[in-house]
């Protein structure tokens, strides 16, 4: 593993995230937590764009060149970063008192807990092989085919009872391995760690945007990726589940924000997130929908308390 390859991989994985952040930010107002919300929701938008670009290469039958994609992406990102979120009045901002030192301290503890969880998950993802029971195996087949042949496989299965894997998720894995330079079962899972991080940003940012104080928003964000609400590290082995969970969370959150603040321009990102969900429809079948109720519990708890603490 050379440092150059690792740096290119990290840059390639961060690029869609920054791109999504830069795209989503102008749709938001400068309320509390808007940056975190843009980081959480932007992850989905960025990867969707990357998948569309890769699919374009497939349609035009051009060999995929990651450097070419990265240069084009950053040419788009730099001007987009100049676009700022819309300013809002003090009444709209609902100015709050600065959180107490204790709130900061407990939030810091929760951040440390999250970092520890992600560290453990990273060890899992990096070293664990693709297991026979993984729902993500079907997705990896499409991804590996694209990586080796440069095209999406057709007629993958003859079995009526088999679930066709989501091409969107497969393209994400293909992109990661293309950036790495060779097919590697450790690398294909890294984007799903990003999903977990994006989920925390999305819940924290969303609740802060809706008026929650620092500590309750942080608690809800931690709960989203923690046991017993979610076997987060275990689920990360199953890419479909975390991806669908993030898309559902962002969709619900944008919808609640639109209804609460009447920020209708957020309908456009919402439609894109729904498009992501449609493109991941086979992943929804794989995930089984168990996540939906889990996320709802966190949301109800978060929204219920956000105005009171």
């Amino acid at each position: 593993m050379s440092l150059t390859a690792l740096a290119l991989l990290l840059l390639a994985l961060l690029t869609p995230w920054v791109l999504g952040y830069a795209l989503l930010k102008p749709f938001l107002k400068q309320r509390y937590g808007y940056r975190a919300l843009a980081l959480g929701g932007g992850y989905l938008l960025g990867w969707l764009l990357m998948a569309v670009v890769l699919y374009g290469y497939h349609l035009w039958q051009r060999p995929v060149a990651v450097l070419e994609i990265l240069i084009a992406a950053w040419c788009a990102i730099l001007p987009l970063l100049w676009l700022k979120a819309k300013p809002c009045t003090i009444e709209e901002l609902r100015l709050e008192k600065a959180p107490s030192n204790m709130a900061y301290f407990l939030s810091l503890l929760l951040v440390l807990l999250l970092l520890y969880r992600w560290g453990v998950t990273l060890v899992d993802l990096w070293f664990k092989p693709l297991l026979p029971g993984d729902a993500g195996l079907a997705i990896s087949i499409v991804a590996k085919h694209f990586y080796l042949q440069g095209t999406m496989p057709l007629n993958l299965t003859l079995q009526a009872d088999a679930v066709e894997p989501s091409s969107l998720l497969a393209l994400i894995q293909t992109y990661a391995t293309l950036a790495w330079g060779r097919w590697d079962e450790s690398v294909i899972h890294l984007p799903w760690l990003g999903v977990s991080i994006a989920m925390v940003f999305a819940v924290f940012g969303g609740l802060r945007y809706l008026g929650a104080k620092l500590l309750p928003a942080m608690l809800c964000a931690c709960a989203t990726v923690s046991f017993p609400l979610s076997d987060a590290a275990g689920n990360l082995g199953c890419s479909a589940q975390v991806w669908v969970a993030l898309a559902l969370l962002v969709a619900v959150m944008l919808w609640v924000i639109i209804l609460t603040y009447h920020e209708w321009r957020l309908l456009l990102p919402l439609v894109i997130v729904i498009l992501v969900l449609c493109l991941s429809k086979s992943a929804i079948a794989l995930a089984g929908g168990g996540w939906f109720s889990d996320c709802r519990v966190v949301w109800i708890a978060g929204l219920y308390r956000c105005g009171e603490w």
Partner: protein
Amino acid sequence: MIITAKVLVLLYFACVGGLFALFLWLSQRPVVNAWWAVLIAAWLLLDGHYLLEKTVKSKNIYETFAPLSDEEKAVLAAPQAQALAKLIASVLPKNQQAYTIRVRLPARQYTAGRQSDATQTSVGETLSLGNQLRYYLLPNQVTSLSEKLPNALWQQGDFYFVDARPAQQRLSYSTQTQRLTTESGLSVPAVRVLDDARVSIYRVQAHQENRQ
């Protein structure tokens, strides 16, 4: 420094106990409801316990898989599929061409107990084996057959056919005429390239003159 399980347990209780104390203290302040503080502490307790288990599992995963390559990991994770994939790959011509391979997997097993549960498990296992073969044999295009292969595809030919069922349940093959008889009675020209206790592999020829 090596972190042993005992140290982890101590750390776990220290962290969770500290957090619990903090939340109890916080609950005495007028701004936070005591019931919420207790609920959150209980959640942190569960989560801490889970994280501890996860840490031990991750340590085991690191020790087991860290020194291995992807292929060696696959041998540990899915020995049956990996062995079958290697066997099939060994009979394919050594060039860069991608071949079509159709694998006839073992029939679904029905075990004692509730039939619906047994069926689901068995179907899951069959699909899983098929998926693993597809993955390991890429870029060849592998399709696993849990149902009969349509006659049109048999007649079209030009693929490798892998019969992975037990020897007595396999399709019949005549070495004299070099023809393989399918489940529906169709006879197609094929060359048997491997036949052992685990699997029979045929090269089904591409042609138009198959006869019933």
